[in-house]
């Protein structure tokens, strides 16, 4: 399912524009990663696509405006993992994952819902947790449950807002490996908001960089993740190298810590350093 975003603008009630004029395209079978500093509009953009916010501009799925589809179709096709997830419900892991298929659940739960729930639990390697209650899980395990909820619907467009929160290194890699595999095998369109640039370099087919609600760069990781771009967007001096064909980004220092606070002289030095 091809996702196209054109002229997208959004402002929260009484506030300035959070998304200014977003143009973006994400293709089936590819992992598109959105990066950018805090408050750059990543989460807002994903919420707009997920239908939780009503922006101006066009969001198209396979060329058709999202508003022209029936709401239940969108719910069936689009799966969204919020950045913050509530785990206060007294439910077992299996029940919580089943809820991801709420559209097809009836009072008596059928095989057609039970089997996919167990399958995704096994794919994520959390089958031993299936009958445990959510409040008995660690932060990382809870995050795995959230990811399972997002995947169990077998969506065609997967939107994940910082899915690696609370995960250890092994699980970060396993989740991203799994997401890549599912994206390619099922030809789904996966859009992820992430912070770790090395993981972005390793797993993204396409990177979109947001800053202050604008897309300031997009393309393949090698083209986008340059020391100049990273410096301009994040205010960080970094070294970008290639190791075994994969980009390695090593942050060296914050520009502010190197040059001090903004003064005209310091700003000129900063600009020279990041190549503006």
């Amino acid at each position, binding site marked *: 399912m091809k996702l196209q975003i054109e002229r997208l603008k959004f402002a929260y009630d009484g506030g300035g524009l959070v998304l200014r004029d977003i143009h973006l395209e994400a293709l089936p079978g590819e992992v598109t990663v959105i990066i950018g500093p805090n408050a750059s509009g990543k989460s807002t953009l994903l*919420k707009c696509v*997920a*239908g*939780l916010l009503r922006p101006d501009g066009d969001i198209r799925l396979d060329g058709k405006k999202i508003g022209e589809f029936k*709401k*239940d179709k*969108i*719910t069936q096709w689009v*799966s*969204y993992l*919020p950045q*913050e*997830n*509530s*785990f*206060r*419900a*007294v*439910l*077992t892991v*299996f*029940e*919580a994952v089943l*809820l*991801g298929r*709420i*559209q097809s*659940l009836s*009072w008596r*739960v059928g*095989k057609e819902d*039970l*089997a996919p*729930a*167990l*399958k995704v639990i096994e794919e994520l390697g959390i089958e031993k947790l*299936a*009958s445990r*209650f*959510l*409040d*008995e899980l660690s932060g990382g395990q809870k995050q795995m449950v959230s990811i399972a*909820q997002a995947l169990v619907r077998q969506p065609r467009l997967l939107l994940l807002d910082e899915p690696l929160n609370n995960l250890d290194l092994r699980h970060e890699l396993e989740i991203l490996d799994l997401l890549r595999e599912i994206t390619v095998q099922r030809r789904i369109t996966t859009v992820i908001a992430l912070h770790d640039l090395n993981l972005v370099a390793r797993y993204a087919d396409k990177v979109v960089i947001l800053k202050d609600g604008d897309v300031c760069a997009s393309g393949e990781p090698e083209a986008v993740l340059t020391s100049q771009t990273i410096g301009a967007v994040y205010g960080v001096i970094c070294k970008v190298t290639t190791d075994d064909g994969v980009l390695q980004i090593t942050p060296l220092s914050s520009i502010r810590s190197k040059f001090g606070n903004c003064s005209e002289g310091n700003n000129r030095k900063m600009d020279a350093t990041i190549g503006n």
Partner: protein
Amino acid sequence: MVTQAEELYQRITGRKYVVVVSLAIAVVLTLFIDIAVGPAWLSISEILSAIWAPNSVDPATSVIVWNLRLPIALMAVVVGASLSIAGAEMQTILDNPLASPYTLGISAAAGFGAALALVLGVGIIPYGEHFIVPINAFFFAMLTCLLIYAIARKAKLSSETMVLAGIAILFLFQSAIALLQYVASEQQLQAVVFWLFGNLFRTTWLKLAISAAILIVTVPVLAKDAWKLTALRLGDEKAKSLGINVERLRLKTFIWVSILTGAAVCFVGTIGFIGLAGPHIARMLVGEDQRFFLPVSALAGAILLSAASAVSKLVIPGTILPIGIVTSFIGVPFFISLILKRRSGYW
């Protein structure tokens, strides 16, 4: 994979079915105990005979069972179930463990309506003399629900605003009741205090039928939304992303539980503890899958009030204590013991 998934699901839900059946049996037992207990003790066989073959028992027993004990005992079950369901769904839609008809001021509003009729003789509907108190109580309970909703709507129906609005209204009506009590005569004051204690002894078959009918209509409506209400506990954002119209679900549920609460408290007065404790007991027993949480809340509330009704006749021989007092006395120690044993993450 399918068999494994079914086995896992049966393992998770099997225990919950056992809880539902056990509590249903317990409701029947407490119901019979409540009918049996009183100044004249009745045996189970006498009760059964009086119910199934009234002519086979002496007329006095038949009158005691049919005119006094049975409607009151059934009212305890119906009101207990209604208040507990109302509390369960309020806690669910407001995402707050303290939400209940009592803590949101709905019971206090009903009490004010009743006090208005008892002290000033003011009726919302000018006719229906026998029902002036319950009609007033029901009217003010519903009015309060609308007020809480109107305030919360200003804040986009956020659960925090609804709870805060409810607590503010609780204080408002408590003050209004105190004012009416201040100006009331001694006899009126006694009537108001007696109403506010909560009492099942005003029960008639008609009142029971009205409360039961509203319960019977409300349960399937709430049950139909069982999965949506379960998903609401995952947070508004997640629920919305699952295709749930959160605002509409919250409003619809709030209206139904308001009617349920109004119908329960208008006939029996203020009974505070059931709507808080029933859902918590249910949550500890079966979790928050609403397909089990809803019936178990109802059963837990029914057992608590039915048991309280029986105990209210036993504490002081020859005297029947107001049930609102007894409910807290037997419920609070039990509830605290459950809280101490609970798992940390319930709320």
